[in-house]
């Protein structure tokens, strides 16, 4: 019986990255529904430990896919070739990847090699009554949701990070760990990494990890007002984000962009100033626990998703807001 395969990820320290457990959680009901094995693959240079972890997280069998060419998350060519070799070996009916830096490039390319295409960036997967895989994905920038059915011989899906909670780890679970060496050659690699440059100089708190995020948009009118947002972030121990409009205008670095094509944030408090709430922006922040917005337009879309709203010009609202905050956090 063709198994369900998840392609997990291995951290630089050799652990299973969190997406691995999320994918196993997404795939477990599929494998059980089909009555087949759930196989996890962990590609890397040294992935034995991660493979063993995958068993404790709910996989029936785990492949430590090891090759010197799999030494980097951006070694897409090698990752595609390795996944293709593994699929030839085990012939899965469903392959799940995370929609991560690696999965985003690798999953579709594998799919095309297998004669199909991927269902990308899915937030839910299930079996239809005819046992076909159906996947729910945001489309049109998040304005709509679509169920798509995978009709090919193999279904390839990328699952959005944090869409599934990992199952509780159970150290007593038994499962076979298999060493699999795809034996990649230079010919598998068509593009080469020349250098990597870190530009985000933010000290300390990463936007993605912050419990409080203060984001500014086009309504701020220029780069200078962002100092107010920085002040708020500092007072509350948060980080500053921005809409694409503010990034494209060059007011703040592109690394601050929140949204569909920027970062996904899920803080307890997401405070926006001068952001209209376009669906593509909301795609990166809608899962925040509380959205609070300052905007001069009471009909702005952002208020449809906000818990609290302050309608008015930020120039008048922010100074008093900051003053009051200072008093509160003193």
């Amino acid at each position, binding site marked *: 019986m063709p198994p369900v395969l998840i392609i997990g990820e291995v951290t630089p320290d050799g652990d299973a990255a969190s997406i691995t457990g999320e994918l196993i959680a997404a795939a477990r009901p599929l494998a059980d529904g089909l009555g087949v094995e759930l196989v996890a693959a962990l590609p890397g240079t040294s992935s034995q430990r991660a493979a063993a972890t995958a068993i404790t997280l709910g996989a029936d069998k785990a492949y430590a896919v090891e090759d010197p060419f799999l030494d980097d998350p951006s070694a897409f060519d090698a990752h595609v070739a390795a996944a293709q070799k593994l699929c030839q070996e085990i012939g899965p009916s469903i392959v799940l990847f995370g929609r991560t830096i690696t999965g985003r490039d690798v999953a579709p390319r594998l799919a095309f090699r297998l004669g199909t295409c991927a269902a990308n960036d899915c937030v839910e997967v299930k079996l239809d009554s005819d046992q076909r895989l159906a996947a729910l994905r945001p489309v049109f920038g998040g304005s709509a949701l679509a169920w798509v059915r995978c009709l090919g011989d193999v279904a390839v899906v990328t699952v959005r990070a944090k869409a599934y909670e990992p199952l509780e780890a159970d150290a007593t679970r038994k499962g076979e760990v298999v060493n699999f060496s795809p034996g990649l050659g230079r010919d598998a690699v068509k593009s080469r990494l020349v250098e990597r440059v870190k530009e985000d100089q933010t000290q300390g708190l990463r936007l993605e990890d912050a419990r409080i995020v203060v984001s500014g948009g086009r309504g701020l009118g220029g780069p200078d007002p962002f100092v107010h947002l920085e002040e708020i972030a500092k007072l509350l121990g948060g980080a500053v984000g921005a809409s694409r409009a503010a990034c494209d205008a060059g007011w703040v670095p592109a690394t601050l962009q929140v949204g569909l094509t920027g970062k996904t944030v899920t803080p307890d408090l997401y405070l926006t100033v001068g952001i209209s709430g376009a669906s593509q922006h909301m795609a990166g922040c809608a899962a925040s626990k*509380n959205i609070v917005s300052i905007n001069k337009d009471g009909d702005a879309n952002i208020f449809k998703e906000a818990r609290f709203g302050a309608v008015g010009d930020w120039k008048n609202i922010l100074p008093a807001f900051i003053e009051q905050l200072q008093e509160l956090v003193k």
Partner: protein
Amino acid sequence: MPLNIIVAAKQVLDPEMPASAFKVDRDAKKIMPPQGIPPVVNGFDENAVEAALQLREIHEGKVTVLTMGAEFALDVIKKPLSMGADELILLQDPAFINTPDSFFTATVLAAAIKKIGEYDLIICGRQASDWDSSQVSLGIAEMLGLPVITLGRKIEVGDGKVLVQRVLTDGYEVMEASLPAVVTVSNEFGEPRYPTLRGIMQATRKMPTTWTSADLGVEIPAPQLELSDLFVPERDRQCEYIEGSDEAAIGRNLALKLREAKLI
């Protein structure tokens, strides 16, 4: 060395239409075209046209734009020509419907690229703003056996190679591949140029070439992804608007409210 560059561009519903104009016909599994809001060239594809034009300025050569669909708004889809592209090829056929099945789209585009025959670089936008699938470019590369580098914000060509600065979450990485290659670009590449008056005049005189599925000799592949439902998600948050005698008071009351709700 002059460069032959192919850009794949798509006509899409304006993704920045007001939320109130966005309506889904759930039975037909279609977005209802908004009244009075014309379609646009997919934004990232305009970035791709811009990238191609900049490379042509340095290396000379030719920029050919390929677009696939059942129907086009000609004045919209000719925009790459008015920006300065040399040729526009419409892959137009009643069978070329707008579908989330990227296997189909990539098959047709790859067939057209084969028919063009001579190319050094294929540039695509990172994703189309309707289905947001971000994989047609990858499919073209796989079907033609070409290297592919995604999320470019800067592209350089020299010595038969392409060097691409790829966007990362905290910076960028430089990737290199031999030509011919596929590269996708993101908005970080920079604003696409506005068509000049002269460009618009020239574009009105240029007629696009049209190829049907018969011209391409392409067999329509078996469907791989089928849309089974399309709907607008429910949003049931009730926003509590903060009151105050003036805007400063609203600001103060907002801070107090955040404390009361234990958010700070």
